């Protein structure tokens, strides 16, 4: 067993599960989505991205790309949140919440893809 692989898999799967936990609930109801969860998703996603740096294989490149997509979507989601609450003063209305969650849902899709790649890589790994 390779500790590096364990840590790698751990962060990728954690990113997906946290992301799922955050978006789970009614899409336009702010009560169902906690800010700490979004924070945790972003941090874990960033760490997962860094872990994917420096892979020279084709599958490694796709891994990195999915992570970048997830980061982008999550940071956009956090920005929308911050903008609505602090800058425009609109607050977490239903449309704002819906757009925050839909961005995070996009990130979830990327994270799921990342896990699928992880599984494929493991299956292809014959030794």
């Amino acid at each position, binding site marked *: 067993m390779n500790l590096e692989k364990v840590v790698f898999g751990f962060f990728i799967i954690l990113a997906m599960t946290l992301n799922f936990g955050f978006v789970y609930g009614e899409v336009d109801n702010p009560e169902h989505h906690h800010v700490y969860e979004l*924070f945790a998703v972003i941090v874990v996603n960033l760490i997962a991205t*860094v872990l994917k*740096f420096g892979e020279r294989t084709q599958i490694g490149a796709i891994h990195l790309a999915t992570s970048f997509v997830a980061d982008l979507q999550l940071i956009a989601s956090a920005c929308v949140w911050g903008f609505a609450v602090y800058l425009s003063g609109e607050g977490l209305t239903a449309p704002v919440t819906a757009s925050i969650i839909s961005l995070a849902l996009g990130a979830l899709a990327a994270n799921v893809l990342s896990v699928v790649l992880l599984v494929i890589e493991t299956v292809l790994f014959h030794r």
Partner: protein
Amino acid sequence: MVVNSAIFLILRRMRLPLILLIASYAVSVLGMTLVPGADAQGRPAPPMDFFHAFYFVSYTATTIGFGELPGAFSEAQRAWATITIYLTVIVWLYSIGSILTLLQDPAIRRAIQVGRFVRAVRGLRQPFYLICGCGETGGLLMRALDSHNRQAVVLDIDPMRISELELGRFHLDTPALAADVRLPEHLIDAGLRRPWCAGIIALTNDDQANLSVAVTAKLLRPKLPVLCRADTPDTAANMASFGTEGIVNAFEVFAEHLAMALNNPGQHLLYEWLTGVPGDPLCEPLRPPRGKWVVCGYGRFGKAVVRHLKKEGIEVAVIEADPAKTGCDDCIHGRGTEAATLIHAGIREAVGIVAGTDDDINNLSIVMTARELKPELFMVTRQNREANTPLFKRFGAQMNMQPSVIVAHEFLARLTTPLLARFLDLARRQDEAWANPLISRIAAVSEETVPEVWDVEIGPEQSIAPWQVLNEGGHLAIQDLMRDPYDYQRGLACLPLLIQTGTGEGLLPEEDLPLTAGDRLLFCGTRGARRRQALALRNINVLTYLLTGRDAPGGWAWQRLAGARKSAG
């Protein structure tokens, strides 16, 4: 993959600092959102939200430090801020430190260099020659190629030579890399597989490395011309066995020339003129005397000289310091630097001496001693190191042999004018009576300087105009290409040396010989003549003027108009 390897290496090594950075930020921001704050009156207030926490940590971690924003902190927040400062600032410093260390790392620097080199080679959009080994010979060849406006790519095992190359003044930017040419991947990086690679030249001072370059090139690019330097006949035979075209053994070439100069001075002169540097003054004919010769040193050079001299039927006495090692049976034992040995070898009866050891100072000492004994001797020296040029120049032997110069000249001639090598081969079979009139014709044409020698191929690529004329059923003779485009009645200062047609080849073709498409010609003449000839070769209107003496109308409308006027008049 090589191009990106520097980036990959950096990313891989940056993993730990980046993860530490993300983690320290996360901990600090999270803490700030949990620790209760205080309002303006000092009463407990809810903790910071994420936005303000991230703002605070960002300006604290980067040591900008705006202070307690948005309002005064509670004691608990101050305690956590202290922790935040130490945590994030240290991690920041560590990250920046690792980036700086990374840029200094030899592996990274090497990866960056290789990446830059590979990109430069890929960016080349003109034929280039791959030169392996950039010592004295390689340097000379590079300079010559550069002055002919030919692109080169250089590999050498010694990083010092590569950095010296960067200081050299060249017209073209030459990609160069310090790498071992024995590894095929380095040759591939240097563009061996690129379609623009026009030839590979192995010039290292290691026969084994040259051999491995030849093998690699023959396997990866079987049709690519390979030129190799070979210092021993064994290596040369080995290279020839798998079809390497150009193998140059400097010692053999020189010994052959010495024999040629003895036997057929006119031919030797012809060779010297046609392979010299264009623009230099023409050298005088050498007339080495026939009679007894003394050869000092029976190494690779000495053996070649003795063999060629004996073939010409000349009596040779050999002096060698180590007869057992060099396999010399009837040698006189000694170095030749002392008068006694030279006298013993019969210097008093001799007409010429060859100082051919592998030590420059010994060679000079030999010829200086010999000059004391018999000043009228014909002296031939072997110069091993470029650095000793002033000494050999000052001594002024009748012939000086510099392996690096000989190899560089041979290669240059083969690269820039492939027909020239063929011409010289054919010329070697001719006699003095053939060579002497040619020499005076060349001297007349080239205005007492070394002439330029160039190939012309009647084809759609190099010379489209004659090709068009011939394809349209026109008649074209060699003399039509030898007229001045500024005045068609004047001739150009050039001379056709060789013609290769589909059916055969001819030395010194007659000037009224008709040309056919696909013919290849070798000319020699002045630089100006070459330039003016090129005008006629590329421009059909100029060529038509040369053929008819009239400026032909260029475009379709003008041609129609001219036709109408002719029929009217």
